[in-house]
């Protein structure tokens, strides 16, 4: 596993948007490794519907940046076959909601190949996609389905929550010798943050302690990290000190960092955008109470979407997705719990 920032490298940091940071990672890792190619719908000529792949066709040409028909099974399957032969395909799925049409290739083929074949094959495939609600894109273009993906042995799943992570995790994913999926959050595309110019990668399975604190821990996934930060800032005004952990990858899950925090704060809220029932929060919650039962002063609490498809109307969608005020309220409730 490469380090986050290679030692001894000069680091020049400037502000970039989340999507530009991701895009820079793509450019740099493709420049580094000629075995990396990108394939998907409108990723070449158009640069991807979210601008994720802008400029790659111009820089790397049509051999390495390939537009396809609307055929997600074939896109992912092509990646599986090419990866089994040693290339490093990046297959774009555009919207996370489209996993349903390609699921077999993801979970039965890409993820299982190594194990099922007795270790004889590695599948260094990266799938990129965009999830999350808040764009008035309705039920089939707004989902967060990371719980499905994290339940698949053989697959790794990243959910970058900052520009820095968007770049580092796409690089980490492509360099990883396993099938990985990097889920960008559509509503974060324009969010800015500091990003080193240099090429760096973030290894999978290392959580980010976004903020240190002592009264309660918030484990937040994807864009909920941003909301948690807002909530924590508000709570701080009332002297409530919140620690925020961003697992960064939900598979593998860095449970140790979470447990260490919970043993310190004794209270924990897990927040994600996906529906609560069966969400990744359930796994995190279970593991916390399994490993830190005697440290908990209150039950592990979850805040997530209600058990419904994502509604279109903005007023409903706003009520649907957790946000800073609700996180804040839940932390306060958590602290009141005797």
């Amino acid at each position: 596993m490469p380090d986050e920032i290679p030692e001894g490298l000069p680091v020049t940091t400037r502000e970039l948007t989340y999507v530009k940071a991701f895009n820079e990672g793509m450019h740099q890792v493709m420049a580094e490794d000629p075995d990396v190619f990108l394939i998907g719908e409108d990723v070449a000529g158009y640069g991807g519907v979210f601008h994720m792949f802008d400029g790659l066709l111009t820089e790397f040409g049509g051999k390495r940046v390939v537009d396809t028909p609307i055929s997600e099974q074939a896109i992912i399957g092509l990646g599986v076959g090419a990866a089994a032969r040693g290339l490093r395909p990046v297959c774009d799925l555009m919207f996370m909601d489209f996993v349903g049409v390609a699921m077999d290739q993801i979970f039965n083929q890409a993820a299982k190949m190594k194990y099922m074949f007795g270790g004889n094959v590695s599948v260094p495939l990266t799938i990129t996609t965009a999830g999350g609600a808040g764009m008035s894109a309705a039920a089939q273009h707004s989902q967060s389905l990371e719980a499905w993906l994290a339940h698949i042995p053989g697959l790794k799943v990243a959910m970058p929550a900052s520009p820095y992570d968007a770049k580092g995790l796409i690089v980490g994913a492509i360099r990883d010798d396993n099938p990985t999926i990097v889920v960008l959050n559509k509503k974060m595309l324009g969010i800015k943050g500091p990003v080193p110019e240099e090429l760096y990668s973030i290894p999978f399975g290392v959580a980010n302690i976004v903020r240190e604190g002592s009264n309660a821990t918030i484990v937040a996934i994807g864009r909920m990290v941003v909301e948690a930060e807002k909530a924590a800032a508000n709570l701080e005004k009332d002297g409530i000190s919140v620690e925020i952990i961003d697992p960064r990858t939900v598979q593998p899950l860095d449970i140790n960092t979470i447990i260490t925090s919970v043993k310190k704060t004794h209270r924990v809220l897990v927040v994600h955008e996906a529906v609560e029932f069966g969400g990744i929060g359930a796994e995190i919650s279970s593991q916390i109470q399994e490993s830190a039962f005697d440290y908990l002063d209150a039950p592990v609490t979850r805040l997530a979407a209600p058990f419904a498809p994502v509604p279109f109307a903005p007023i409903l969608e706003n009520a649907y997705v957790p946000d800073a005020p609700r996180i804040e309220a839940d932390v306060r409730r958590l602290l009141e719990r005797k």
Partner: protein
Amino acid sequence: MATPTEALETVMPATRELVLDLHRRMVRIRRFEERAGKLVESGDMPGFLHLYVGQEAVAAGVCSALTDADQITSTHRGHGHAIAKGADFRPMFAELYGKTTGYCKGRGGSMHIVDMNRGMLGANAIVGGGIPIAVGAAFASQYRGDGTVAVSFFGDGATNIGAFHESVNMAAVLNLPVVFVIENNGYAEFTPQDRHMKLTDIAERASSYGIPGVIVDGMDVLAVRSVALEAIERAKRGEGPTLIEAKTYRYFDHQGIKGMRILYRDPAEVEAWKTRDAINLIEAIGVERGLVSAEEFADIWAQTEADIEDGIEFARTSPDPDPADILDDVYTV
């Protein structure tokens, strides 16, 4: 590069009523889309829209051959199908505005317009997602022997996805009363047809399923109606599905009116297609054949304008959904 179908003088017979009906359907689509597109771009309406402008003759021609009991399934570019099938402007605009009075009570938005009373079984935001559903609707027709048919509309790009293949083959094997309508507008998003398949005429794919494939000028609403009628009659006679390819064009961008971030289409191509505009064509036919006067056509435009204002006003003044009801209708209880 897509080229407009050769400018054929339409030879289809037409009555005054038919011309008026088809014209009205198309104008209603055109103006609805133009207004809706502007309302989103001005920020008045939430979300984003895939507009049907340019393709009106396909939905209008096909749906004019259907009754309310016949079912259709649609796509992300679904307003035209809904309107052609008889959907009202008020609940349509209300849906786009996310209001309780909308077709989906504000839950669905642009990509999920449904009108069960008119046999509009739903738009769909998943490419190919509606095709097997139409096959199911046709299965119900056959099962009940009620003489209805189902139609599935989808794009050229959708014919490359697995669901298309499975659905058409299934319908062929089960001999179901369904008509598959490819709206070949030459592009899947920003990818031209010759980059997403190695065929010029997608209707050729019919031969993979042992069913008839028909090509039609998708700018000629009378021609579209005529091939649709034939396919529908065939389906009703129990002779199974037909694959129709309507060659057409969208005037606007994949999403919204003018987003052409990159020049994936030659502006000359767009202009060439506009010279064969479906609404202009039907107006020309109506006047030339002495069936409908220019004033009567103008009345339709005017009436449509009034209906649109009414629909927008209705939508704007309709109540927002109540977040307290957010869990309603997840399940039938």
